[in-house]
């Protein structure tokens, strides 16, 4: 019996190739999208779960309030860790200080690499449950030891046994390899740490760190903790949140609270508002989850739609089967197994599509390393139950509908589809197009916002510049010599050093005072220390006053403020005014046009530029325009090799660094546009199928009208009108809902574009155009058919 069903199903599929293609392909695209998004979400949710103490680990975060503005960050002061250890021993199982994860030069003999690593207290490797391949996980209690990842050990030592070998860090200090651990997977927040080095050495080696040990207002470090219980984070946060204020002066230091950020929220809930978690990537998880569900829904709708539309053609078969003894139950079984067969075929195709698109396209788009977990039984269980569910749900309507036909009517030819039989189908088309149009509008607005921020004037020229991190001591103290040598190569127009690259502001400071300042305010300024040539190198624009210059010996106490900073001070004639800070009096010598150094979506931070060559750590080089970049770099490299023989020549292009600021928005935009295209494609496939059935059903009507003198155009508009009506309804629903959703999204950006009316116009016109193009083929071929033929079939 079942064999018979399958046979009929397969022959039906083969006989209606176009229909079968639309049905199977449309459904499989929908399933593939849902599967990709499912895998993506699974990956997002899996972050940091590789650490066994995932549920009890956390990071201490600081919430600072200056001038009513609250910001939460990972930076904490060193004394906090001792205080937590000593005063709250019952609440914390382990506490470990750590530096930022930043670049070092690590060398074994002539093997030199620039790699990121962290200074950490000896407890951290254990807290992270590193999988030791060699050596001891507690080894960092010896301040001369280092723990390496397997991959770093491979490139440093090759096949040699790394244990107890000495590596040189930043051309300065030797460490003994005391352990090798398995690389952390890319979905660990510590994935980019290639080695761990002992905190005690950090204290011993760097004076400023040593000084920070007692400074409660120096927030330059990270603090990780492990609790006893996973549900203790809130309780302990409440207990410790005011610890820093016991040691700080609210009047000068501002207000500060600490909180515990559980590891399970690091990846997805990493944004804070007023000292509380406000969201993060979890929003994308929801967004894509909803989109995936909708795309799949669209595909299922198509499937049901096309099946029921076709069902009227199969009415005769139902009649015959009933006449030769089939029971209703058997017919229901037949149609359900047919739909299961089609869904299963679609599923197989979907797996193939996913498998093909993951490495070639999706992983790059989403910046992931996802693969289908073929070996995971849960994956198969979900997929199979999902296939069954889709098959049963989308097959049930046609199955119950078809099997209810009365054989006499069907076989006599008096069977007529009711007036309202097409209503559900129309509603489904409206749902499809509402989703599609919403996605189109959304995509346009996301790209418009990106474009808007991209065309924002940045205040400097980011083309043709490279930046180099000053990792090793050799690069310091030769500013003029290095600069002269670089310019002498002929490939360099100018060079400067600074404490932040042009694509970031690394330091924020309080404690500024000036004439007319509100005595209660504690304003926060970004601080960038630069060399004389910085402005001329980056091509900033002095609006008033003058740039730093070698001609003025006093420039070590001069300030240049950006426009935002001037606005914050409220000074009417700022040039020549004095600002007190750090127990010194500084003179404002110039105002520079705002530079977009941080997020292009946010307002410009009030920033102060000054000259302190002790703080610089970035070299910025402007290449001579017009020369091939590769040649210029080839000329520059030997100069750096000469000054810094211990390090590889590592550089970043400034315009690339700037472009990275758009990465996450562009990724969202690209993903959204892919999904929008797929949604439209699926909707169109459905529409095409429906239009063909409609044209077929109305063959007789069309024939009669033609005999009565209707032109092809008349018939075309007659047939297209119905669909246009539905699409217009969809646009009317989609426009306000898209407006609502996207104006909410744009609230995330302080520097945002307006939602203009033309977006809706273009999307609506696009949807109508696509509909016409889809329907017209069927409509015109029906209209062109010879009426004699179509009338004879009656």
């Amino acid at each position: 019996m079942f064999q018979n069903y399958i046979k009929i199903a397969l022959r039906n599929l083969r006989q209606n190739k176009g229909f079968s293609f639309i049905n199977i392909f449309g459904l499989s695209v929908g399933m593939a999208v849902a599967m990709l998004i499912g895998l993506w979400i699974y990956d997002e949710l899996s972050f940091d779960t590789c650490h066994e103490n995932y549920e009890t680990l956390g990071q201490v975060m600081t919430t600072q309030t200056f001038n009513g503005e609250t910001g939460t960050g990972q930076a904490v002061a060193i004394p906090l860790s001792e205080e937590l250890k000593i005063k709250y021993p019952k609440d914390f199982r382990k506490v470990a200080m750590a530096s930022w994860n930043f670049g070092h030069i690590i060398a074994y003999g002539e093997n030199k690499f620039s790699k990121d690593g962290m200074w950490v207290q000896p407890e951290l490797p254990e807290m992270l449950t590193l999988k030791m391949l060699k050596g001891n996980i507690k080894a960092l209690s010896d301040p001369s030891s280092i723990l390496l990842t397997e991959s770093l050990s491979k490139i440093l030592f090759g096949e040699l046994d790394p244990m107890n070998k000495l590596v040189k860090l930043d051309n300065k200090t030797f460490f003994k390899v005391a352990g090798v651990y398995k690389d952390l997977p890319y979905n660990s927040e510590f994935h980019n740490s290639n080695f761990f080095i002992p905190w005690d050495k950090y204290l011993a080696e760097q004076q400023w760190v040593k000084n920070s040990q007692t400074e409660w207002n120096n927030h330059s470090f990270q603090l990780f903790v492990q609790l006893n219980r996973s549900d203790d984070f809130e309780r302990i946060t409440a207990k410790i949140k005011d610890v820093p204020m016991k040691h700080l002066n609210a009047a000068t230091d501002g207000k500060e609270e600490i909180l515990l950020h559980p590891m399970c929220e690091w990846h997805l809930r990493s944004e804070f508002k007023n000292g509380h978690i406000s969201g993060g990537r979890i929003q994308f998880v929801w967004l894509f989850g909803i989109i995936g569900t909708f795309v799949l829904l669209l595909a299922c709708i198509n499937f049901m739609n096309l099946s029921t539309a076709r069902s009227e053609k199969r009415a005769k078969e139902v009649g015959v089967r009933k006449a030769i003894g089939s029971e209703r139950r058997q017919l229901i079984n037949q149609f359900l197994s047919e739909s299961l067969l089609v869904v299963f075929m679609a599923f197989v195709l979907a797996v193939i599509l996913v498998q093909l698109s993951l490495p070639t396209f999706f992983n790059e788009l989403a910046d992931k390393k996802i693969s289908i977990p073929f070996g995971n039984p849960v994956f198969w269980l979900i997929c199979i139950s999902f296939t069954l569910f889709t098959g049963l749900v989308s097959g049930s309507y046609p199955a119950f509908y078809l099997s209810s036909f009365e054989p006499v009517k069907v076989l006599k030819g008096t069977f007529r589809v009711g007036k309202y039989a097409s209503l559900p189908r129309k509603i489904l088309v409206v749902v499809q197009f509402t989703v599609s149009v919403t996605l189109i509008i959304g995509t346009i607005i996301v790209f418009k916002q990106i474009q808007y921020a991209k065309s924002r004037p940045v205040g400097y020229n980011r083309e043709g510049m490279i930046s180099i991190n000053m990792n090793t001591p050799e690069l310091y103290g030769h500013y003029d010599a290095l600069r002269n040598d670089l310019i002498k190569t002929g490939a360099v127009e100018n060079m400067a050093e600074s404490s932040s690259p042009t694509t970031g502001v690394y330091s924020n400071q309080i404690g500024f005072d000036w004439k007319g300042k509100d005595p209660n305010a504690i304003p926060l300024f970004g601080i960038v220390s630069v060399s004389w040539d910085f402005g001329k190198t980056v091509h900033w624009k002095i609006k008033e006053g003058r740039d730093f210059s070698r001609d003025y010996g006093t420039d070590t106490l001069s300030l240049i403020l950006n426009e935002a900073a001037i606005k914050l001070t409220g000074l009417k004639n700022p040039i020549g005014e004095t600002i007190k800070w750090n127990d010194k009096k500084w003179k404002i010598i110039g105002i520079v046009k705002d530079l977009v150094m941080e997020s292009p979506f946010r307002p410009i931070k009030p920033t102060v530029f000054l000259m302190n060559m002790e703080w610089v750590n970035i070299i910025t080089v402007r290449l001579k325009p017009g020369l091939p970049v590769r040649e210029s770099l080839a000329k520059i490299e030997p100069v750096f090799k000469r000054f810094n023989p211990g390090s590889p020549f590592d550089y970043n292009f400034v315009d690339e660094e700037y472009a990275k600021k758009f990465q996450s928005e562009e990724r969202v935009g690209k993903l959204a546009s892919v999904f929008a295209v797929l949604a439209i494609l699926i909707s169109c496939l459905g529409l095409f199928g429906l239009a063909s059935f409609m044209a077929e059903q109305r063959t007789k009507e069309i024939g009669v009208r033609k005999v009565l003198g209707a032109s092809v155009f008349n018939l075309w508009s007659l047939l297209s009108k119905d669909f246009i009506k539905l699409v217009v309804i969809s646009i009317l629903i989609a426009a306000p809902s898209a407006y609502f959703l996207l104006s909410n999204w744009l609230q995330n950006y302080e520097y945002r574009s307006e939602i203009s009316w033309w977006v809706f116009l273009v999307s609506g016109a696009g949807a109508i155009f696509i509909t016409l193009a889809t329907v017209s083929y069927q409509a015109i071929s029906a209209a062109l058919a010879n009426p004699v033929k179509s009338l004879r079939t009656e």
Partner: protein
Amino acid sequence: MIQLKNIFRWYNSGANRNFVLRDISLDIKEGEFVSIMGPSGSGKSTLLHLLGMMDEPNEGEYLFLDQSVLKIKEKQRSELYKKHIGFVFQAYHLIDELTVYENIETPLLYHGISSSERKSMVADILDRFNIVGKKDLFPNQLSGGQQQLVGIARAIITNPKLILADEPTGNLNSKQGEEIMELFKTLNAEGVTIIQVTHSEKNAEYGSRIINLLDGRIEKV
């Protein structure tokens, strides 16, 4: 075998009642070959559908093998129908997607007959109707007469006691028609009761009894 008592069948159209069958009483014995005749719209097909349990009267009583068809449950009725009745249509109504062999086999599937038995039964009937060579063709590859042959083969494969035929030769030329009628005659001789609806006097002559319908009533001859 069949007893109809005072059968009425009507359709409501607006406030009016359109009677299709009025007060039909009829007795058909096993082994009869009955032809129902009458002009278009006289209710022939409706009567046939009533007899075939595909339609129900608004009033009256229908006994099939001494069971009251109208009083038993849907399920029992379809059992009764499945077991004893075969249907032959004017437009053949073969399933287009199935081959000749599969079309004939389908009723056996619904009767739950085992695969090996099905094979021999279908083979027998193909042989008997001389269409073994056509078994793998699809309906649209056959002539009308051949299609109707398959239709009849499908109707009798379950060994029904009664065959209902709705203008079985209506779409055929006279030679094909004659062949079909000869076949019916043979089947009747083997003991199958046959009731056919027909327009043609000539075909009606094959039957042992003719019932004339006019405006839903049986004309007494």
